[in-house]
């Protein structure tokens, strides 16, 4: 396993800048999630790390050694594709063992390692089948197996769960987390799904428009979003944003919104008077009559959903 450092990577496709000055560091054994809406450059960054496409500027380092001049084979990374990209004409065993075979590993060792990996993923019974005979979840496991069997320096996963149905996705997410704790591999994981990012990542990298907006633990990203984009992108239901002004009255600041006023106490940032935008997570809003906040709203729709009920106004 290795640590990964990306320094000032810029990539342009024609006139479009897919990545601009992206830098990040992933510790050895860390699970890092690249999160952002589609077209934000996260997959491009992953492909650059893998060596499948080359960057225009910047450098990629494994264990502080530049790998820019190395082919994907020499970089010794493993990748799981969104489509799984299983070789359709090979059996599951051949699919998993392909990387070892290409590296001229002796047959008996390939067999052992394929079996061991299949056991780890619970797919021993499927080894003789072809990909077309497998369900979506099973294919996903085979794709994981193909990556795991080689014990590479780095695992790169490109939206590996997006083709699974919601129930399966939740259970595979848990398994993936357990698997990571078991093998302690360095993982870079691309997703547009904030739930995946928040539940899987040790570190979350939020991207938008080819730029890295914020890097931090899921808690930090949630509690202290860098800007309104991160604030609204993370969290479901979405965070409420209100525009208004802050004003100092006595010792405390207060926020004057459109028809309501909030006293700001114990706010972890330096406050100044002026126009601001504040955000409130829906779960932090309670119905009550404490008197210090007066906020009236008209509920237009109530949506009961399991233990949560969402109110839209």
């Amino acid at each position: 396993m290795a640590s990964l450092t990306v320094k000032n990577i810029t990539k342009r496709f024609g006139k479009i800048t897919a990545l601009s000055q992206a830098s990040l560091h992933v510790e050895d054994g860390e699970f890092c999630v690249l999160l952002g809406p589609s077209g934000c450059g996260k997959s491009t960054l992953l492909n650059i790390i893998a060596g499948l496409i080359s960057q225009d500027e910047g450098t990629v380092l494994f264990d502080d050694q530049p790998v820019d001049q190395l082919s994907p084979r020499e970089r010794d990374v493993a990748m799981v594709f969104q489509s799984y990209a299983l070789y359709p004409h090979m059996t599951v065993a051949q699919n998993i063992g392909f990387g070892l075979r290409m590296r001229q590993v002796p047959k008996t060792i390939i067999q052992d390692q394929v079996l061991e990996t299949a056991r780890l993923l619970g797919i021993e019974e499927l080894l003789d089948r072809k990909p077309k005979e497998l369900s979506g979840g099973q294919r996903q496991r085979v794709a994981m197996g193909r990556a795991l069997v080689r014990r590479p320096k780095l695992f790169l996963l490109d939206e590996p769960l997006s083709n699974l149905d919601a129930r399966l996705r939740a259970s595979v997410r848990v398994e993936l987390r357990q698997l990571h704790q078991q093998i302690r591999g360095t993982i870079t994981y691309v997703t547009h799904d904030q739930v995946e990012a928040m539940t899987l990542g040790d570190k979350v990298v939020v991207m938008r428009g080819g730029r890295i907006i914020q890097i931090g633990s899921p808690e930090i990203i949630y509690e202290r979003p860098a800007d309104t984009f991160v604030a609204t992108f993370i969290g479901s239901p979405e965070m409420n944003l209100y525009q208004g002004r802050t004003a100092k009255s006595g010792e405390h600041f207060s926020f004057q919104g459109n028809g309501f006023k909030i006293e700001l106490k114990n706010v972890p940032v330096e406050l100044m008077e002026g126009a601001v935008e504040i955000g409130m997570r829906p779960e932090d809003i309670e119905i009550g009559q404490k008197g210090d906040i007066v906020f009236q709203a008209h509920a237009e729709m109530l949506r009961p959903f399991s233990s949560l009920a969402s109110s839209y106004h």
Partner: protein
Amino acid sequence: MPLKTKKKPVPNLSSREARLAFWMLAPAFTIVIVIVVFPVIWNIWLSLKPVLLGDLRGASLFSFNLTLGNFLKVFTDPNFSTIFLTTIIYATLGSVLSIILGLVAALLVQDEFPGRSLVRGLLLSPYIAPVVAVTFTWSFILDPQLGVLNWLAVDKGLFSQPIPFLSQRWWVLDLPLITVRIPLALTSVILFEGWRYFPFAFLFILARLQAIPDDLYQASVVDGASPLQRFRHITLPQLYMVLANLFLFRFIWTFNKFDDIFLLTRGQAGTFGEFNIGASSAVAIVLFVTLAAFLIVYFRWIVKEAQDFL
């Protein structure tokens, strides 16, 4: 009093669908009968009768003077086994060559480069050009007296004397240790066949190549496969089905090939001859039966195998 209405009973759904199906299938069925089934039966009929060109319009065409004489003539011909073997060699090598050339061409123009569409279009020209025109051009190029190839080769000292590529059956090559006898006209015709029909293979292979998902290649690159390994383990297996089908088509068409060879060689190297309709029909039946046998074997083994690759 029960009301009596004299209405035609409405036919149920399945019989209405059956009627529709009948009328939908009738045209195609008729066409197949007229242009496939009837000629085959007619051919079998003719092959069992002594018919010469002059008899083709006579009433004797319908008389039951059946005989196996035509087949006897074909099978007892002292050249039969040689001709049969030559046909098989020609069909096999001609098909394989055109497929290999098509594969190489398809791989060359698969990736993006400036002028790719133009090159792709130009590659089709041997196949599109009229057969008379291309055979004329080639026989002109290969001609021993007037041909540009012989002139160039003799001029540069490559050949000591002009080689009649299309009209000489054997070409004896004296090498230091052994003497090799090359079937010259056959080789020329096979090379011509490979050249003329590679665009057909090229088109099919290119279409299949374009359909191979890019991420299979990306996955294999990450798995550490070299370009050659990628071709061997990804491209070739993905092409297996189309290659198998191409060989099938090319083999059938080359096996029955007449026009190209006739136009190219004018029968000079021992090819064509008499106007015996009955005997010709018998030859056609022999070709037909051979191809049918080939098809059965082919579908049993190769195509079944190929489906495994999907």
